[in-house]
């Protein structure tokens, strides 16, 4: 009986999560979008995770971030997919699979990814995943490639109080 109640609750929550997702399509990421994201989280630690639908190394890190977010609801994670606006339904579905349905989502909306990368970080040459760690003062630490789980935990421990 309790099992059924849990199942029903899960279905209900799942449905709600779906409704929330459906309402919030990933926003188009253009030049200036990162500044907008940073302003929104001014004074707060933040992880901006750049990824893409076809990136096979990305799910490892995103799943870890999803698990960390469950454990630490105060953890600010913003997802930016280096795909195209046409890929928005897929980025949304994948983010949900990684437990990041509620994280704000953006998707690259410029035919020239270099233009966005120059705005984000001139020294980023497109490797994915790419993770931006901002502490409360928004000092940036950028990492290319999958960030090991231990390092993500360390960052959360150091920055979330």
């Amino acid at each position, binding site marked *: 009986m309790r099992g059924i109640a849990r199942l029903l609750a899960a279905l209900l929550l799942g449905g709600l999560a779906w409704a929330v997702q459906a309402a919030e399509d990933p926003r188009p990421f253009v030049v200036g979008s990162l500044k907008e994201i940073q302003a929104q989280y001014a004074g707060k630690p933040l992880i901006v995770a750049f990824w893409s639908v076809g990136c096979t190394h990305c799910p*490892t890190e995103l799943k870890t971030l999803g698990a960390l977010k469950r454990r630490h609801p105060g953890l600010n994670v913003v997802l930016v997919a280096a795909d195209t606006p046409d*890929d928005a339904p897929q980025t949304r579905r994948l983010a949900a699979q990684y437990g990041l349905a509620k994280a704000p989502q953006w998707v690259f909306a410029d*035919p020239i*990814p270099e233009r966005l990368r120059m705005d984000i970080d*001139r*020294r980023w040459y*497109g490797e994915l995943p790419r993770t931006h760690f901002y502490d409360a003062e928004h000092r940036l630490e950028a990492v*290319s490639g999958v960030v090991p789980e231990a390092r993500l935990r360390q960052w959360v421990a150091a920055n979330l109080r």
Partner: protein
Amino acid sequence: MVKLHFRLPSLALACGLLLGALPAGAHEHPAATPMARHWQERLTAAKGSAVSVAADEQGRLWSVDMRQGQLWLSRSTDGGKTFAEIGKVNAQPEAILADGQSRPLIAVHGQAVVVSWSQALPKLHTGHVRMARSEDGGLSFAPPVIVNDNREEIGHGFNAMKMDRRGNLAVAWLDGRERSAAARKGGKYAGSSVYYATSGDFGKTWTANAKLADNTCECCRIGLAIGPDGTAVAQWRHLFAGGVRDFATTALKPGAPLQRASEDGWEISACPHHGGDLAIDADGRRHYVWFTGSARKPGLFYRYADGTQFGTALAFGDLDAQAGHPTVFADEKQVAVVWREFDGQRYRLRRMLSSDRGETWSAPATVAEAEGATDLPLFVHGAARPLVAWGTAAGLRIVDLREAP
């Protein structure tokens, strides 16, 4: 004019082409995952954004580009100012990868036209290396064949192909069979592997598939060149100990030892989708160009090598202008290096020249600019002059470095 279609490029698009395993949602039917749907869209793309151009012995230029699953052959007799369509390479449309690090390839000599490409299979990040050959100057092609003799539905792709004027022809590609075999035994295999086949008669007959290297990066194009002795040499991003993805090189012949071609120390748990390029000059000196994101010294580099002796790595390109995707040309004394930068508004092709086999170099200069999305620049295969082929939103451009400013 060959028009190119650019889908917004996504760097990590085919990162798993050779993984041969679904990293996410593996319990679902492959076609049901968002990743697989993305793959399906890519393999049904209406037009490719990556083209190739080769010169024949008369200096005429031949291009291949993908439209609706068919490769179209075109020819220019005016140095690349205009191209006239000749016809289709593959009569039956198929899913052909023609973007980023995966492009159709062409080699031409006399009446022989050889075209190779990566055919995408329905399963996520899987494919076959394909080839079709014409003996009548491209008017008709024999039905395409599959080059990889392992026919599992796993990754075989990112092929490179080069031919010399004596009929030596080489194809090298990234192949997931070793990884697949390890997985069947319940083991793990890091990265992919490089396989190759060669021909000595302009592609009429071929050697059996042979393995060149184990444990390579999964989705960076392979650099390939044929030396004055007719032996091909490959350069690829390798998986060294500790997850370091630097470059390695070796000759395409049995028993040739693997040599480390760069000591960047780029430890990255991802595939950067950024292969290098290789040219061999008339005296057999090998000229390498590549990109590294190593924290110690990121950016573009050039070095030459004679036998086992490697020269010092020379940094080039503007790190703050997204300098990337270098390509190299070499003949008797001249070496030319071209790469792409972005100035915030438009892409530009930059070049540097050496007239003493890579000992000293000119200052860099801009030789072309383009608005909108562009393909990666590559030197025209088999050209006696340093001609760069560059796909732009306004069409395919051929830049002759000897005429450029």
